[in-house]
Each structure stands twice: as C-alpha cells, then as structure tokens.
C-alpha cells in the first residue's frame, strides 16, 4: 500500500515532447512507472519513447485510461494545463513546473473547487512510492521500500533526507514533494491525513521551511494522529523579507519564521530535528516508543 500512487496507476505526461518532459518520462519509465501516453497540443498522432501523443487530455484519457497526469508544461501555460487535467476529471495531477505566475494559481485554486482533482505542486519534485515507481523528477535509486511516509516542500533537501533514511535502513512507504510556491494544491496537513489513513505507513517525516503557516496548521493535526511524526524546519538563518529561492519561502514580519514553526511543532509534542542528520535516529526512536 501507499498513498496517491501505486503500481496500478496509469500516468500521462502533459508536455511530453518538451526537453524536460521527455527526459523525465524516460526516468519514470525506468523506475517502473506505467506511463501510458502524453499530451502536447499540435503533436497529436506522433509517438515518443513508443508512447502515443495526443492533442488534448480528453483524448489521452479516453484512449489510455490514465488516472494520473504529470505536468512539465512551461510556466506561462502550466496553469491552463492543470485546469485541463481537472476539467477531464483526472483524479491526480502532479505539476512539476516552477515559475507559474501566482495570479494564475489563484485562478487554478478557484477552478479546482468546481473541478476537483488532487493537485500536487506546482514547483515540486513530484512523488514516489518505492517498489511502484514515481511521478516527477525524484532520483528513484535513493529510495527503499518500507513503512515511513515522507512529505517535504523541497526537492534536493528531500533527496538528501531520504538518502539518509535509506542509509540507516529506514524504508519509505510514499514520498511526496508538495512544492515551494505560495499557492499549492496539497498541503502538509492533507498528506498527514493520507498517511494516517494508510495501513502501510507507521510513521511520518515532515520537512518544512520558512514562509506561510502550513507547518503550524499541520502541527495541530499531527497532535491528534495515532502515528508518530518527526519534523525538520529549514531556514533558521533566513532574514526577514528575503525570498530564499522558493517563491513561497519568505518571512513576512512575524509570520512564517522558522522559530515560530519550531515552537508550534514542539508545543504540539512533535519532535523537531536540529539537523537533518538527527532524523533517522529520531524516527527509529519514535517507532520503538509507539
């Protein structure tokens, strides 16, 4: 078992003929993911990597029975691509694209209220279920099948921590990168709920960072969970008012600081790792206790 994605998932790639889309389609296929086709308007009827390309998501879904879409469309067209997937009732849409104008995302947020799809991202590395494959750009070789859920706002930091867990013999059930933008489809609390309901997952690692209040909201929920959560917050040295790479990583006045997040988590009884190197040991300890 896993959350959101398993070996029965059928994936199409929106933007499959672009450089990024093509490169990562190969990576997904190599990880064992069942990629069943792609969408690029204007390239319908062609083939890449032996996969059929369609002009629209509607055709792709009808012809391939896809239930997941992975988006690599460039920033100015990405919001439209998300809405197209939602319009066709795709159950899961994963948007990797970085740099989507935030006003476009406010429109997407409003649209998704009437056309529900589970959106992961944008500006995210996607997700992986060790043993079943991945949707997105995570390096698949770092994973190990297991029963610890992982959720993070970042890409390379996720790989770093997952590699530490794997090295320590702690396998993962599913790993979700929710994205570094201010407006994202799926938040920490959504992922914690999914992990809480997943029979395979026994504990969760949550890696947050400065900006917004997702970590604080998640802390309140984590307190009520039956499974242990171990957390880490990045950006303790970030000054106020500076955007640290991710569009959403900014401390505004008193809101969004690492200190505030660490305090909220600790107040909820959620252990916060001082450095990422402490995470594997803390997970093992939490599992011994529960």
């Amino acid at each position, binding site marked *: 078992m896993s959350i959101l994605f398993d070996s029965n998932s059928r994936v199409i790639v929106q933007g499959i003929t672009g450089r990024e889309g093509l*490169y990562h389609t190969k990576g997904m296929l190599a990880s064992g993911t069942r990629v069943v086709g792609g969408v690029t308007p204007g390239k319908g009827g062609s083939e890449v990597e032996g996969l059929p390309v369609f002009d629209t998501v509607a055709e792709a879904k009808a012809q391939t029975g896809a239930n997941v879409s992975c988006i690599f469309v460039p*920033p*100015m067209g990405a919001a439209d691509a998300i809405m197209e997937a939602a319009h066709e009732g795709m159950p899961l849409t994963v948007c990797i694209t970085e*740099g*989507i*104008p*935030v*006003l476009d*995302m*406010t*429109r997407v*947020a*409003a649209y998704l209220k009437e056309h529900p799809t589970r959106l992961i991202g944008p500006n995210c590395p996607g997700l992986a279920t060790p043993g079943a494959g991945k949707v997105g*750009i*995570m*390096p698949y070789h*770092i994973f190990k099948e297991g029963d610890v859920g992982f959720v*993070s*706002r*970042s*890409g*390379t*930091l*996720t*790989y*770093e921590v997952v*590699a530490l867990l794997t090295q320590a013999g702690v396998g993962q059930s599913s790993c979700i990168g929710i994205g*570094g933008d*201010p*407006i994202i489809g799926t938040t920490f609390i959504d992922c914690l709920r999914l992990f809480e309901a997943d029979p395979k997952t026994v504990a969760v690692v949550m*890696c947050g*960072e*400065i900006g*917004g*209040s997702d970590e604080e909201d998640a802390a309140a929920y984590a307190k009520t969970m039956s499974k242990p959560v171990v957390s880490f917050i*990045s*950006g*303790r*040295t*970030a*000054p106020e008012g*500076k*955007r*640290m*790479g*991710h*569009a*959403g*990583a900014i401390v505004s*006045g008193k809101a969004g600081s690492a200190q505030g997040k660490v305090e909220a988590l600790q107040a909820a009884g959620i252990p916060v790792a*001082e*450095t*990422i*190197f402490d995470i594997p040991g803390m997970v093992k300890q939490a599992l011994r206790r529960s």
Partner: protein
Amino acid sequence: MRRYGIPVSPGKIATTPAEAEAIAREFGVPVVIKAQVYVGGRGKAGGIQFGETPEGARDAAARVLGMDIKGLTVEKVLVVPKVAIKEEYYLGVVLDRASQAPVVIVSAAGGVEIEEVAEHEPEKILRHVVDVRWGLLPLEARGLLAQSGVPSVVVAKGGAILSALVQAFMASDATLAEINPLALTEDGQVVAADAKIVLDDNALPRQKEFAAWAEPEEANPLEFEAKAAGLTYVKLDGNVGVIGNGAGLVMTTLDMVARAGGRPANFLDIGGGAKAEVMAKALLFVARDPQVQGIVVNIFGGITRGEEVAKGIILAQRDLPVGMPIVARLSGTGEVEGRALLADAGLTWGVDMREAAQKIVAEINANNAKGATA
C-alpha cells in the same frame, strides 16, 4: 494608477534643486518635496519637506537630494502641489496564501503603517476575499467603504478607486497594491496621495513594460546583477559564501554553516542540471562580495553531475582571489569522478554537508588567525 482611472496627485521628478524650483513655478506653491527611495520611514528621516515659495522648493530639494536614508542615497525627489488634507484612509489588495486569492484590505485609519493598525486596532480593518473570476465589483467596493465608516463622498469616489485598484493589481500581476493614504481634501476631492505596488517576479515575462521598471537601487546591486545573470542569489551579511542546488538544500546548508559557528554571506541556488560553466560563474559571483572569505559548495547530484561541478570549481580557481578556501561536498550522480577531480587539483571536499560546513569555517578561522599574527 492613472491608467486605471485612479486620481493621483500630479507630481514631477527632479534630480537637481533648479529643476525642483521650475516644477514649483509650474504647479504653483506651496509644494511638497518627497525623497524617492525604496524604503519606508522617509518622513521620519527628513526626506519629506515643504516649499512655500519656488526658492523655498529649491532649498528644500537641495537639503533632501544627496541625503542618506537607511543606507540609500537620495538621487531623485518628487515635487507635488501641497493640498490641505482633511482625512486619510487605507486601501490595499494583497495576495493571501491562506485564502489562495487576493484579499482587499480597507481601513478608515490611513496614513500610518497598516501593520501597526492591524496590531493595535484590528477592529478598524476590514478584509474581503476577491473572487478572481469577477475581480472586485464596484458594489462590493462601496459596501466595504460604507462598512468602514468613511463619509459618503468617500464611499462613492473611494469605491470606484478601490475597484480600479483591484483591476490594476490583476492586470499588472501584482502581489501587493496599496494606496496609503487615500486622502479626502478640504475641498472634497478624493485622491491617492501615495501608492505602492509590488509585482510578481514569475509574471515579468508577460509584463514586459513593468520588467523595465526594475531599478538597481531597489535591492542590493549584487542581487540585481545576479537576477540578470539568471542566478538565484540573496545577499546576507556573513563571511561564508554558500552555493548549492535546490532552494531547500541551500537553506539547510546556511543553517549548517551557522551551526558550525560561521556566518553565511549569501544564498545561491544553481538549480538543476548545472554545467561546469554555471558552477564557475556562481563561484566567481559569490567571491565578488568583499565580505566573503571562503565558499562552501553543497551538491546533491540528481540531474546535476558531480564531475561537472568539480570541473566548474577547478575552472574558477584561476580567477578566484588567491588563497580563498573552497570546500565542496558532492554526493549522488558522479560523486566518485567529481571527488577524484577535486583531490587531483588539491581541493578540499567533505563527505556530507555537516563536514563541509565545519571544514570551511575552520579554514576561514585558520586564515584569519594567520592574518592576525602576521
């Protein structure tokens, strides 16, 4: 603002006292001289002065031009006719993460920082989530103003201004647009006496007109240059340069440098799949900050290959200041090849980011100790 039908005080920019005098003659006195700098608190710093006569305007401009406000030199002043203001209000629209939408903020308490009103008199602030399909309808704008308790002339004229402000916000891809204060003058006019707009960097490719407005004095000059060079760089105030791939990883590296007893000098994310040339460019860029005494490079290789990073570090060597320590940590794709290249070139590398952070801080401290005894 004018383009969207928002009445703003007429004003002209002067860069010399003589220009300010000429503008004052054109508008008629009295006038207000306002320093043009991208920081708040200029009034307190003496950056706003009055000219009762054209000559007075010239003298006031002479006092303000060249003034230092929070580290920025005033090179321009705005000359505007002085109007008798009866009351001041606040109108704003800001992108709100929690609502995933623009939120309009209205307050009858204007002319001061809205954050202070929010903290001390939250009951004086009204918030309204904008439906992005419609924008803010004029009827909603009037309703908000009526609710805020402003006089009826402001409900009518201010409502139209607020609705237009939201239009301007959406059309220009802003993340913040505010009029503070919106002024009711003694003669019953409602005008935007001062305004501010912050644009979304992600939208600049489709906002070509505004992209040209960005000015170097807006941010640190190095940050401005980095943006033009396609690097994600944030200047901090320490002495340890930090470069990595991925925002979360770089942020964590900064924290690790701080834990090792160092002070990070910057944040620099080279992104995914960087080649040797990009790595070399990043190193040379970070080294331009005169405070930097050493640089730590932290790469988790996925699409980015360790040997490309190593080649980039070696490539940059001949142009870096002599004796500046560099410690690299390469992991993932190409780590074996990359580490071998660095070792052959006599460069230091760390197995993990903690070790790399400790090594760079130790090397900088050792250099400084040598410098102190020499």
